[in-house]
């Protein structure tokens, strides 16, 4: 029985002209000793603080190469600056594919920038792997089978808050403040989906702000007056700080959920006041280098050693360097899983075939899983409460993938 299948498969392979053999001969960016990987990052421009991710990835690949590469191949990482400008991303992506002849793109950064090359990459049938953005749209295996995200999406994160509220605060009256754009609406959608039609009745007030507004003071007053006792704060750090401060000042004391976008203690909670921020809840998935829980964690120790050896210029407090390190590890896992027979198709197939991968700097218990119908690698997060000094994780890992709408 098994034998017949094998023979049949073999015959089919021959009939089709040997897809693996042909793919090997056809796909650029590949030699017996090297695999060429393309990337765009904002090394200049408004989002240049993220540029460290590209540098961390390059540094990680240098280590892999020092250790002999993958299946005898060295990783040649070609990372270009797009300044976070979509037309430049298009030009750079074309340069990478058509001039540099890379095998695939990895960790291209930014939502508008990746949107600009989304169709192009899929038209070209070139893997567009683990893009560095939290938008939900990247997990679309039917419409865009060559593009895949990496981090938990905004919607997945909002699901987790909804799930927690349904379970622990069933009589909540929820007030929401969100930024009036795609980012804010992505969170809002995930939150409402998570609450479900009945749960949505718990929402008593929705307030918005424009990113250009000077303050959100009046919105906070409105939320207080609505009688809300749970506050979902979907704002970027500047407004998160204002909202937390204002609520504290006018004596509004709801249970506060703060999106991960503003989970930075330095950028959001300190400006709001550590006392005012006490009790705020967020969701995390990466180990924070400043968290004393990880002081003696082997994964964190290895990361520090690696930082000192391969990326000494990098900031040891910047979680973006944890992020770059972890994405690079994910890719290395995929490439190892491909075996020696690399091609664009196999890379994509193995990217969609990650089973229970845990990484040293993901929170304990988080596993990366993908399948041909699941293009959302990380879907678990853990809630954490701010104790006035740092985030203290509590409760179990939440898994957004269990929701049918995801």
């Amino acid at each position: 029985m098994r034998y017949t299948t094998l023979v049949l498969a073999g015959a089919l392979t021959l009939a089709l002209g040997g897809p693996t053999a042909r793919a090997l001969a056809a796909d650029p960016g590949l030699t017996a000793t090297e695999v060429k990987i393309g990337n765009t990052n904002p090394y200049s421009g408004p989002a240049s603080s993220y540029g460290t991710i590209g540098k961390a990835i390059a540094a990680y690949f240098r280590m892999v190469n020092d250790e002999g590469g993958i299946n005898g191949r060295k990783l040649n990482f070609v990372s270009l600056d797009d300044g976070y400008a979509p037309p430049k991303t298009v030009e750079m992506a074309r340069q990478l594919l058509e001039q540099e002849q890379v095998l695939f793109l990895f960790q291209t950064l930014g939502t508008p920038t990746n949107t600009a090359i989304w169709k192009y990459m899929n038209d070209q049938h070139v893997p567009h792997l683990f893009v560095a953005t939290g938008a939900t749209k990247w997990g679309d295996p039917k419409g865009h089978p060559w593009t895949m995200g990496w981090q938990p999406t905004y919607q997945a994160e909002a699901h987790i808050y909804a799930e927690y509220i349904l379970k622990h605060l069933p009589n909540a009256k929820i007030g929401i403040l969100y930024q009036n754009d795609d980012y804010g609406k992505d969170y809002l959608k995930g939150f409402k989906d998570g609450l479900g039609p009945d749960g949505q009745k718990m929402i008593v007030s929705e307030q918005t702000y424009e990113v250009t507004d000077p303050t959100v003071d009046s919105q906070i007053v409105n939320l207080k007056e609505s009688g809300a006792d749970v506050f979902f704060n979907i704002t970027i750090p500047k407004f998160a700080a204002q909202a937390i401060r204002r609520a504290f000042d006018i004596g509004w004391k709801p249970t506060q959920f703060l999106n991960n976008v503003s989970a930075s203690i330095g950028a959001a909670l300190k400006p709001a006041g550590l006392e005012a921020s006490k009790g705020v809840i967020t969701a995390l998935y990466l180990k924070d280098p400043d968290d004393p829980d990880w002081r003696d964690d082997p994964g964190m120790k290895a990361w520090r050693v690696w930082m000192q050896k391969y990326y000494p210029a990098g900031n040891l407090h910047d979680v973006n360097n944890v992020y770059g390190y972890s994405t690079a590890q994910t890719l290395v896992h995929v490439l190892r899983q491909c075996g020696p027979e690399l091609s664009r198709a196999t890379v994509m197939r193995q990217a969609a075939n990650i089973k229970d991968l845990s990484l040293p700097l993901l929170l304990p218990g988080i596993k990366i899983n993908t399948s041909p119908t699941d293009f959302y690698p990380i879907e678990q997060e853990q809630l954490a409460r701010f104790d006035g000094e740092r985030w203290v994780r509590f409760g179990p890992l939440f898994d957004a993938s269990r929701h049918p709408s995801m």
Partner: protein
Amino acid sequence: MRLENAKASLAPEVATPPVRAVAARPRASAATAARAAGLVALVAVACLLPFELSDYRTFQFTQVFIYAIALLGLNMLTGYNGQISLGHGAFYAIGAYTTAIMIDRWGVPYGWTIPVAGLVCLLAGFLFGIPALRLEGLYLALATFALALATPQILKHFDGWTGGSQGIVLSKPSPPAGLPLSPDRWLYFLSLGLLLLLFLLGWNLLRGRTGRALVAIRDNPIAAEAMGVNAALYKSLTFGVSAAYTGIAGALGALAIAFVAPDTFNVFLSITFLVGIVVGGLASIAGAVFGALFIQFVPNWAQAISKAAPWAIYGVFLIGFMYVMPRGIAGALRLLGRRLARATESRPG
């Protein structure tokens, strides 16, 4: 004082065209013929180029043509008419979004969207030009700068139309049926064709009465009005035509990139345009092409030289160009041509 400087830097270019027109009359026909032959040769090379280059390089040259159209538009306004605009990225955005919305919302064939983008920008530019009449020099620069700053936010505000910060994804235009061209080559020829058409129109406009009126307004508005030039009308019309050129470039840009998003059209784009016309050569039609080559390729070279500090390298290039060629590339070439002519003239025979 600053204002005087800004004007002074524009001024030297001015006197040349009329003077030459009179003095060089006897040799004009020979020179014109030589120039025409050179131009034909250049166009021929441009037509063959995409068949020699990769699709990626073809795409880069398409972008050069698109920038050149935008730069010619800005050059009419700033170079010829002396109105400094730090906000032409806004008109580029209006053109791009006109095309994107027409294709995405209403399914209009892309060919029609280009002239419409031009017309919309003509109107927008004309309307912006009317209040701008009250603003001179640096004050106008500030007002247009505000326009550039506001553009991304305005685009995000009307997200029902513009798709918000996600932008609008388009398909690359396919060549008309029967033309054996790849989409990249087709876009190249479309841009080249429009470039030639718009340059011809621009040349026609700028070399004659209108051009002289624009230059006169720039150099001495009172004298120009005394000569019977309707300064207000010319200035706002120039704003309109300039915006129309830039808008057409924006429309082509949207087609070439196949995507528009608000943050593409930030202040930096407007400043890049200004850099382009200054490096290429103010008040020069050919300067627009040189400027476009500069803004397309120099940032890439800078990045190839140093990934750590590409903009520092870019700055060095910029200062180098301005030091060696203070009147831009076109100005330097003109000077070189004149020196050569003088050298051959002084030779006996």
